[in-house]
């Protein structure tokens, strides 16, 4: 069966520090991968998505970047965090068909102080 792992679950970082959130998927190959950010009680804002190794699409200009160094690994990074980067970050994967569902990790609560 497929599983998705996202870590860490919570993170408190000072302004100006770097960030690296990692997400890995098991039990499937060539998944679509996603990074979303969610404000409290609100919808998911698509940050990045990837259909293959090294292929990253960015949805919004921001202080973050994403990389996919391996087929089932998706990394969200920042060189210098801003206060506005605080939020709930969710990694997800889906199959490559049009009708397949997205499966989400447990999320990372990032607080920039």
């Amino acid at each position, binding site marked *: 069966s497929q599983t998705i792992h996202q870590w860490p679950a919570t993170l408190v970082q000072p302004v100006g520090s770097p960030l690296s959130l990692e997400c890995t998927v098991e039990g499937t190959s060539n998944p*679509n991968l*996603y990074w*979303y950010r969610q404000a409290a*009680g*609100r*919808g*998911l*804002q*698509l940050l990045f*998505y*990837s*259909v293959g190794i090294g292929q990253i*699409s960015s949805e919004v200009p921001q202080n973050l970047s994403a990389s996919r160094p391996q087929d089932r690994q998706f990394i969200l990074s920042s060189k210098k965090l801003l206060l506005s980067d605080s939020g709930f970050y*969710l990694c*997800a994967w*889906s199959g*490559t*068909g*049009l*009708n397949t*569902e*997205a*499966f*989400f*990790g*447990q*999320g990372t*609560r990032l607080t920039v102080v």
Partner: protein
Amino acid sequence: TQLLEQSPQFLSIQEGENLTVYCNSSSVFSSLQWYRQEPGEGPVLLVTVVTGGEVKKLKRLTFQFGDARKDSSLHITAAQPGDTGLYLCAGAFGSGNTGKLIFGQGTTLQVKP
């Protein structure tokens, strides 16, 4: 840029009442999904609709896809406190595997006993 407008954003009702949540876009979806999310967790899929005019039922939940595949609705009959949560619609756009999955802003539902 594809956008999904979800309404209402907040809904507080008494147990036993009916409700409808709407999801609209100016773009055509290749498929549309409805998710439910609990606090501190990732969203979980409820249903996927693909064909224009399609209606799917999941116990007391009825999902409808608009004929033009630009809108969808979620109707809950005789709501229960266990239905409380954040409901999200998500649309896949484009033909083939574009990888892009956009979410609406979410509807927070509170069902009071």
